[in-house]
């Protein structure tokens, strides 16, 4: 009797795990593009209008003009509302459009805009923006949009930002294994750290 019981328990475990594996097997582990879900934001912020190419009606604003913390801190942060208003209070042409009106409503109520996180890593991963921006933008002189785009995709073509890369560990590592020059002029190469504790502290 009890042998049977044991066997059945084991079988249940086996089936359960096989089932789970099957479900997961549909999603490949590493892909270049892995479009995340659409995220609804309180204000549909048009990244394309702000950062996009001039030819396509964009203002070509540097990412770091608004995401000013990325080069100085482990988090990129969301710009303070004050920053939006700083420009928009003198841009009369769009002052009465619905999104800008909403923006000013938040400002007048002195309330923060409740943005949703689009790129949200699990809490056991510590991703450092500063290190990446310092390396690629400041040491290697890469264009800002290219550097940010390694992880965030082609944001300048999006309206509301959407995750474009898998942000899984395998995906991070695939990049960290590639050699790249130390800085803009050097022929010496290096690659990103592959120690566990770099990200899992």
């Amino acid at each position, binding site marked *: 009797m*009890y042998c049977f*019981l*044991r066997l059945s*328990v*084991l079988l249940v*475990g*086996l089936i*359960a*795990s096989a089932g*789970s*594996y099957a*479900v*997961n097997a549909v*999603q490949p*582990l590493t892909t270049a593009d*892995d479009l*995340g*879900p*659409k*995220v*609804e934001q309180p204000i549909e912020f048009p990244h394309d209008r702000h950062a996009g190419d001039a030819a396509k009606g964009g203002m070509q604003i540097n990412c770091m003009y608004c995401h000013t*913390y990325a080069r*100085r*801190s*482990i*988090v990129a*942060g*969301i*710009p*303070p*509302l*004050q920053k939006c208003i700083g420009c928009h209070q003198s841009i009369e042409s769009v002052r009465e459009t619905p999104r800008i009106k909403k923006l000013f409503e*938040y*400002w007048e109520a*002195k*309330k*923060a*805009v*409740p*943005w*949703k*996180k*689009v*790129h*949200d*890593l*699990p809490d056991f991963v510590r991703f450092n923006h500063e290190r990446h921006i310092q390396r690629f933008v400041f040491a290697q002189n890469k264009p800002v949009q290219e550097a940010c785009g390694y992880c965030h995709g082609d944001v300048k073509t999006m309206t509301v930002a959407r*995750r474009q890369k*898998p*942000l*899984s560990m395998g995906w991070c590592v695939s990049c960290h294994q590639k050699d790249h020059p130390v800085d803009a002029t050097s022929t010496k190469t290096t690659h990103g750290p592959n120690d566990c504790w770099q990200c899992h502290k």
Partner: protein
Amino acid sequence: MIENSFNRRDFLKVLGWGGATVALSGCGNTSVEDGKEFVTSYVQTADYIIPSIGTYFNSTCAQCDAGCGIMGRVREGRVLKLEGNPKSSINNGKMCGLGQAGVQAHYNPDRIREPLLRNGDKGEAITWEKALGLINEKVGGVKAENVAFLTGGVSGHVKALLKNYLDALGSGHHYVYEAVAPSIMRAANKKAYGIEMPRLRLDKAKVIVSFGADFLGAWISPVHFSQQYARFRKADNGERGVLVQVESKMTLTGANADRWLAIRPGTEGILALGLINSLAAAGLSVPGDVAAAVKDYTADRVSKDTGVSNEHIGKLAALLKERSPSLIIAGSAAEGYAHGSQNATAIALLNQVLGNVGKTVEAPSGVPFPQMAPTPGNRFALQALNDNMAQDKVKVLFSYGANPVFTAPASMKLKENLKKVPFKVVFAHYMDETAVEADLVLPLDSALEDWATAMPEYIAEGAQLSIQQPLMEKLYPGTLGMGDILLALLKQRRPDEYKGYEDFYSYLRSAMVSNKGALGGANEDDDTFWDTALSRGVVKLVGTPVNISSNASAKGLVVPAPFVEDSAYPLHLIPAVSASLRDGRNANEPWLQESPDPLTTIVWDSWVEMHPKTAAKLGIVEGDIVEVASKSGAIKAQVYVFTGIHPDVISVPLGYGHEAMGRYAKGIGVNAFKILDPVFDKETGELAMHETRVKVTKAGQRVIIVKDEGPAGGNQMGRKIAVRMSSSKVNLSEEV
């Protein structure tokens, strides 16, 4: 049958499969959560504020009365950790564990969040408008002399506002109460030196003899004294100071001493006079009248009375004679008796004879603004209030910064007398024992979200005004700062004078800015002055000079003979003031409950400290639950057998045994305040904290004490760190 046969190995196998399932699901991207959490940005912010990087703001610690300067690390608008403010001359950038727990007072889940009005047994939430209106109505409905205000020690602008409010009401009844304040010593110092709280220069002394002053743990300004102590131990000239601690129960300071002398409780004064006599005999010049007064205190007699051996008295006298200046400190152990004043005076006399006055006992700076100078509390204030309540003289009572229902001995019947007061307003952070008795409870901002200024009683250098500023936004919209409440109350009484101030912040700013000349900002514009003051956290003041005198005299100084034994209550109870819990006001901060007592390593409970000889006599071993009964009541707690205590003494720490307050304090340990006997110091009328006699009986149960001490610390696994040596083998003269 199933449980038995399904053994651990099978379980692990199944778990292995299950584990694989979990692991496989983890391989996908399921843990990247898009669009689930909010990321809140600032509306407006300063350039130097960067998300994830801490910014430090200076403020003042409110965990005890020492008033150390602190700086709080603030990240994303939340205060995370406190450090000491290097600009404060009290603590020079250092802090103590009690201060560290300040963040737990702030984030405490048991804080009261809105004003509560009594409705039968319950508190009903009401608006501030209604609460303040009710106070106006109640104080308006009684005679001014029937309004009383009970507070802990106060200073700074809150004190000034409080005084103005009482003046506006016409009531002179401000009772300033501190349960464990060194109030008898203050009175003795006033007589001896003309100053209640002289500056003690531990760093200048070559020998310190401390009569039970736990200056490294819980006494007056422990962080400051600890720093001085470090310089005393490692002086610039390389000479290491010698610390001798004389007390009946070992304190943290006692544990650090070169020589710890267990003295019979209450005989500290006799030893002090005996030392004067020995010094005179050894050739120290002692004024004639003093020499005459102490001539009967021969080493033999003193040794018999105090239990300190002849040999040790001789060595101590030799040490004091050889090394000058020295410093003799009268701590709470010396002053806790009915003759506490005499003990403290005898100790002051010893200082004077040794020529320490003016050298290691210095005059402090006078405070230039008397209306903001500290008003330290004492125990007599509560007795006076209690008497008035008993005689129905109090109709409206305010209580702020005190928890008298918890700290008053049962014999005072304070709780009963409180019931006679028709309207009781309690300003509180928690529903503590006093708040539970109130008719109206007003919730206060935490010290990390409130504005205030403080002038501590003990100031190390010059005079200083410490600024307490909010380190973050309020956690709960329904709390208010004490300054704001007083301002609102003053607006009811003196609208013309106060209506211009929108809140306490604007009052404080304008009060300071309009006095900037006296606050060292004569050449600065208003904004610069104010911003500098806030960024430093302290404003240095030019103190007024104060004279110290050597008035201690032997005239009229009678130190009574040691206690006669009381066969019904054979043991003395020492209510210990621990570095973490003090009088129990911070007991609801779990870090403090969790940090082990430095000597016994016990956590989360009370204990009865007992000498092994006493324990053997009573047939008690560690962990036995005993009943400690005094004439005024009884408590039950676990016994900890410990050699650092006089055999005639047992000790129970204060601060435990709350019946209310919050989840981390309620029901933890027993309240030793309750069983203190109503014995008072003869000169000051202060409750004599160490006068309680008790008997100890086994209650039958035995528990395993929860403590950190164990094989590793207990027997050191043969590593011979700080090897134990019996005290008779230590030769003090060799150590010096």
